[in-house]
């Protein structure tokens, strides 16, 4: 079971991609994209995990030689979340514009409206 967490990350990402491809509502598409991106959080945190490792905040209980989980991937996850929020907000704003122009947010029907 040592690769279990990585499998979870891959599964979350695949589910998100599946949702994007089969979506019938653009808001649902944007949320699915966020779900796919969440797979990267799980993967990053899984890569940095260590059994028995503590949180990387040093003080009286956590010293220099205490095993801690990897703070580098945690920092990357934080960056990831911020970028995800920025992307999601941009996409939702685009969805609002599409809804105004076409009165429809079903991606299957939008192709015909453009033609």
């Amino acid at each position, binding site marked *: 079971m040592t690769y279990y967490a990585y499998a979870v990350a891959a599964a979350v990402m695949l589910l998100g991609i599946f949702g994007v491809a089969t979506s019938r509502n653009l808001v649902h598409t944007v949320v699915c994209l966020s779900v796919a991106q969440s797979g990267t959080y799980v993967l990053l945190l899984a890569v940095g995990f260590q059994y028995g490792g503590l949180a990387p905040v040093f003080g009286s209980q956590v010293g220099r030689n205490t095993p801690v989980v990897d703070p580098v991937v945690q920092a990357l996850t934080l960056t990831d979340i*911020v970028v995800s929020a920025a992307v999601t907000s941009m996409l939702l704003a685009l969805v609002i514009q599409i809804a105004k122009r076409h009165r429809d947010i079903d991606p299957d029907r939008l192709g015909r409206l453009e033609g």
Partner: protein
Amino acid sequence: MRRSARLGVLGAGLAVFAAMMALAFAGLPGFGGSTHPYRDAAVAATYGHNTANAVSSINFDQRGFDTFGEETILFCAVVGVAALLRPVRGERRREVKDSGRVLESTSLLVYVLFPLTIVLAANVVAHGAVTPGGGFQGGVVLSTGIHLLYVGGRFSLLHRLRPLDWFHQGEALGVVLFGALGIAGAAFGSALFANVVPQGQLADFVSAGTVPLFNIAVGMTVCSSVVILLSSFLDQTLAIRADQGGRTGPGPEEGAAT
């Protein structure tokens, strides 16, 4: 493309993707192992600058320039959303009247939680170098606290207590402050975003050199960004209406063509 055909292509693609992921994961070190070379290097560098929170140290000290890029992404996204959601031709802004009823228990909860959330946010930002938290987290908490006013009170209350101009300036100021701190590192220290302030004692409130300053700059930017984003979306829902008898946006010509 027909829906069934699309599902077939999707299935094939996902299968190949899953197989490649499985191959890649098989080459990774096992989950939960004790070999983390980057962790060891990062912990040594964190101790070198007397920073208690290793994640803050990495974000604002060891890779400050990357975080500057990240903050700029957020800034650009907010500018993009503000540009996309401004009132366009055929739309006008109306006065939002408070309507509906708010449960008194909800109001009470909000009036209790509003000051608590603001204080918590200030605490999370200020102790970003010492305890878990930091500018990003604290900024989000602060903007959430401000929007509690909308959840439990009224839009007009939020409108009065949230002067948007301040947040527009606060966002820009946060980004400028972050850049200025980085340039100060180059001017007084060895490199761009170098930690030039004396770092004090590990786990003291004032320690870790420039990290708390970066946290404050980021907190300002993140809080302002979220407030501006949410105000744009709230305006779309509540305040911006299409003119009577017309479609919104530059759409009528296309509607006639189809």
